[in-house]
């Protein structure tokens, strides 16, 4: 039977499964990196430097995606790099979602002076150019995993606050809020029991999208060497190193780039898919 609704559901389903599939594969690899990675990602061996990926002549068994300039295994470095990327993505996006969500809800639901203060702070906040802001923050906070997470949260909570504020405002004007008031519910009770469940899907979708953004930001920062210490592998760092030897060993640049691309794409597709899944009419 073909009806529009089931078609949309099917398309959303496929998108959801593909992106969730890639992300869980990556997450599993990151968690079990010591068991999954074929080589030690930090061991350098100049005799095995710039080995090509497995289907090319001169490839060595055990180095599936080749090695970089210093003879380190590309696949193993991508797997270990996923730890940093996913860790940053999950932590930063969740925290930004939490903080932005709370401010957005309060501003959108209570309006008045709460809204005026929150909205003006957001306006000022958003007028800083984000990448410069991030670099500045890292310079102040020092490099390291927690500084990256903090920088992303500090910059991107406004994104959530903006969207959630408008959503809370829209929901707050619905008749069911009046109905709850007439039934004797207090303002805070209405916020938690009536508004929040309606806004939550939006927050979850935004958090998922934010994870993709966080992966990019982490890659940018590690590309300019402002991420964590240089000896632990990061995708951005690998791309920066691969750039130097692009004509001799393209694989050092291309494989982390593909991984980055697929991961960011998956996060955004997961967000879209979840949005459709949460829509009560399509459910």
């Amino acid at each position, binding site marked *: 039977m073909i009806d529009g609704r089931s078609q949309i559901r099917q398309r959303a389903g496929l998108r959801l499964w593909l992106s969730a599939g890639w992300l869980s594969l990556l997450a599993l690899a990151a968690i079990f990196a010591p068991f999954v990675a074929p080589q030690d990602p930090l061991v350098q061996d100049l005799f095995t430097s710039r080995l090509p990926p497995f289907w090319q002549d001169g490839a060595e068994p055990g180095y599936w995606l080749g090695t970089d300039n210093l003879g380190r295994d590309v696949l193993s470095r991508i797997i270990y790099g996923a730890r940093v990327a996913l860790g940053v993505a999950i932590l930063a996006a969740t925290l930004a979602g939490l903080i932005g969500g709370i401010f957005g809800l309060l501003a959108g639901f209570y*309006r008045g002076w709460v809204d005026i203060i929150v909205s003006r702070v957001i306006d000022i906040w958003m007028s800083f150019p984000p990448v410069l802001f991030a670099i500045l923050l890292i310079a102040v906070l020092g490099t390291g995993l927690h500084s990256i997470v903090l920088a992303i949260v500090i910059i991107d909570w406004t994104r959530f606050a903006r969207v959630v504020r408008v959503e809370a405002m829209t929901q707050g004007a*619905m*008749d*069911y809020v*009046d*109905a*709850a*008031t*007439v*039934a*004797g*519910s*207090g303002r805070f009770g209405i916020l938690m029991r*009536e508004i929040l*469940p*309606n806004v939550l899907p939006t927050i979850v979708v935004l958090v998922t999208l934010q994870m993709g953004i966080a992966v990019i930001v982490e890659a940018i920062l590690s590309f300019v060497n402002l991420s964590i210490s240089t000896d632990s592998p990061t995708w951005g760092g690998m791309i920066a190193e691969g750039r130097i030897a692009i004509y001799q060993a393209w694989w050092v640049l291309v494989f982390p780039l593909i991984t980055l691309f697929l991961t960011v794409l998956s996060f955004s597709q997961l967000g879209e898919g979840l949005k459709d899944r949460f829509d*009560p*009419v399509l459910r």
Partner: protein
Amino acid sequence: MSAFLSIEDLTVELKSGMPVLRGVSIDVNVGKVHGLVGESGAGKSMIGKAILGILPRALSVTAGSIILDGEELQSMAPKTRRELIGATAALIPQDPLTALNPVRRIGPQITRRLIDILGWNKANAETRALELLDEVNIPDPDRVMHSYPHELSGGMRQRILIASAFAAEPKLIIADEPTTALDVTVQKRILKLIEEMQERHGSALLFVTHDLGVISKIVQSLSVLYEGKVVETADLRNFFMQPSHLYSRALLQATPKYTDPDRSLTPVSDEVTAILADEIDVWDKEHGYHV
């Protein structure tokens, strides 16, 4: 003895200072149905909202009193007022599509008042909700209790809202154009249902509508509003037999009749509008609003 709901000289203003309700006075007794009629924008819904404490943010009560069951609402602390309203009054809203929370199941939306305000336990509240759903002729109430609003039709949802309104046996029910958003065929049945429920439960009912045809079937008395001012309050019989205000007469003439479709749709004449504008002017001047 004073009425169960007694509104005296109620004035509601926009933030800009423009009056939306101009000194409205209305009495409604237990077991009686009082109608509020007027064109759109006359402020009829605002009266109900002012009583229930759900006026839009831009509006506020600036004068007058609302006495519900002998208690003055305007001077009450917000929490006390909310709880009193929760226990004694209920609303049948205009749009059944937005009045139910889309992400919550029907059951808890009916039982919350019983549990939160009246302190019933969950099992009793659910039994009561099932009875009520049965009373408003919902087939398979057990299934409906576990449904989400979007799974039900508009008419079903309006029945649920009616059931929900009568759940706590409120002494006052405000029906804010409860049939406007519904199909004509459904309208008639919903109207009959509200009437039956009101009679059975003996509540006072304030019925807001712009439809004189609807009002003639359900109310015992009514007030006609124009620009937030009551121009006439009368018994139903008197109103239809000998309306005292020119505007009421004009409204009755503007109501379409099956028997005489060509002649009956007379618009309100300029003469009447001018008289009304004068009355509003006089009131505004007397109460210190500049025109």
